[in-house]
């Protein structure tokens, strides 16, 4: 669980400590937010080095702006939004305006399941399963938590289009709410949901393949 937003009063305390110039409070946030800040910055600029530079600039922005933070969004959302704003501006200056489709994936309208899994038009049960999916509950309990399973999940997430990957990391790996993710990544409600659904569907499909292959060997 990510501890940057446990409760409103903890967050308020963190904000107060940051305003007072408390280094431990600052480092607490660095430990939790730095990796995702770099990933978000990296979506908009050409190199890892520039992304890291942007994150430094963003932290300075956080320190200078924390006095004006009103708590209308969570602290982590506000910080991530600062990063993405700086990164977008910098990307534009680099002459690198990144089209939404290249971040989000160009398949947003395509079905997430292979159409062959459903009966075609003209069949009596058109649109229903052609073969009923397997029941994962038949698997041993620890199978889902096994190291190999988790590495399939990790490697699938790592190969998703960057915005899909970030949405599923924030939502499902870190447990952020959809409102926080929408705010942090500047996504509409629909886009956030579509990106998350596509990401989950791909991870589910990868697990299905993993479990099926295993059952056959």
């Amino acid at each position: 669980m990510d501890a940057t937003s446990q409760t409103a009063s903890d967050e308020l305390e963190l904000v107060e400590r940051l305003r007072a110039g408390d280094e431990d409070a600052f480092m607490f946030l660095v430990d939790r937010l730095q990796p995702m800040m770099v990933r978000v910055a990296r979506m908009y600029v050409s190199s890892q080095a520039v992304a890291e530079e942007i994150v430094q600039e963003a932290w300075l922005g956080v320190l200078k702006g924390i006095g004006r933070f009103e708590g209308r969004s969570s602290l982590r959302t506000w910080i991530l939004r600062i990063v993405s704003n700086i990164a977008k501006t910098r990307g534009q200056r680099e002459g690198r305006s990144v089209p939404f489709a290249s971040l989000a994936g160009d398949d947003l309208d395509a079905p997430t399941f292979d159409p062959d899994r459903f009966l075609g038009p003209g069949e009596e049960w058109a649109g229903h399963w052609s073969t009923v999916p397997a029941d994962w509950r038949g698997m041993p309990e620890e199978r889902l938590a096994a190291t190999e399973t988790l590495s399939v999940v990790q490697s699938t997430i790592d190969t998703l289009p960057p915005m899909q990957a970030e949405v599923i990391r924030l939502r499902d790996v870190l447990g952020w709410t959809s409102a926080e993710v929408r705010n942090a990544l500047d996504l509409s409600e629909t886009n956030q949901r579509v990106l998350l659904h596509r990401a989950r569907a791909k991870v589910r499909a990868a697990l299905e393949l993993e479990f099926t292959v295993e059952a056959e060997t």
Partner: protein
Amino acid sequence: MSEPANDLSCRELVEVITDYFDGSMSDAERARFDRHLGECTGCTRVVQQFRETIEASGRLSEDQVSDEQREAMRDVFRRWRATTATSEQRSSGP
């Protein structure tokens, strides 16, 4: 299936599982979804698989910040604190 024209097909249902989990459906849509699940083993399994997928993602851990970056950020902080301390002294001075 008493109202075929009104019913969700499996192909449609699998596209709205995240809407269902997020509570972003109308009452009527939710009822239609639930009605389909009540009659369909395949979709019940896939919805369960989505739950297990989310649970598996939840077991991953976030990347760790490297020591190098961590110390670089500490420097950013200390430099910032040094400049604000100086400007406070200046503004509160004679």
